[in-house]
């Protein structure tokens, strides 16, 4: 039973560019959340998608956007990259009906902006 799969694992982009990160949730999960983890910090919530809609959003600018597809997979898009966007981006999946039973996290995408 595959867990959460994220791609790519590593990415280097230039300031001002745009990037798309991808996530496939754990089998049977229908909700996807994205977190940003800067070096030496705890993960920060970006947003959560359920039924292809953004349901919750953290304190991130509109440069951060996302999408969820009918198969529950998700993309995170970041426009106009800044050096400060360099971080580990974690995807977490969960089951809507499994309230607070915890998330399953992927290994993340390490984004470096130069």
């Amino acid at each position, binding site marked *: 039973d595959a*867990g*959460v799969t994220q791609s790519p694992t590593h990415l280097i982009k230039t300031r001002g560019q745009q990037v798309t990160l991808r996530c496939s949730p754990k089998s049977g999960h229908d*909700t996807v*959340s994205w*977190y940003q983890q800067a070096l*030496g*910090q*705890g*993960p*920060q*919530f970006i947003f*959560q998608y*359920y039924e292809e809609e953004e*349901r*919750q959003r*953290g304190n991130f600018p509109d440069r951060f956007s996302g999408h969820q597809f009918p198969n529950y997979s998700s993309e995170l898009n970041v426009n106009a990259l800044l050096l400060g966007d360099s971080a*580990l981006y*974690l995807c*977490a999946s*969960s*089951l*809507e*009906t*499994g*309230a*607070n*039973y*915890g*998330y*399953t*996290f*992927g*290994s*993340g995408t*390490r984004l470096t902006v130069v």
Partner: protein
Amino acid sequence: AQKVTQAQTEISVVEKEDVTLDCVYETGDTTYYLFWYKQPPSGELVFLIRRNSFDEQNEISGRYSWNFQKSTSSFNFTITASQVVDSAVYFCALSEAWAYGNNRLAFGKGNQVVVIP
């Protein structure tokens, strides 16, 4: 507003020693959930334990145990007889109850645990 504070940054212990990680939280809700996650060098967050705000019973699960005290808003975590494989970053997290399923997690800054053989 929800907030999680993990005061220690790096903790080094010799193998077989016990290590306790402190976590203090803030929330305005009466119903909430507390978690501990482990993050090995591979990057993924591994779920360890979960406790809801109505259950202050402290338990032991293998080499892991936790001490939940609502009166002091603390949710401390102990690894007994540490092993080298326990070396990782450990995060305490809080999730407030929500009508629609799993709510967002608020994480502390983490504790880097280094177990020295």
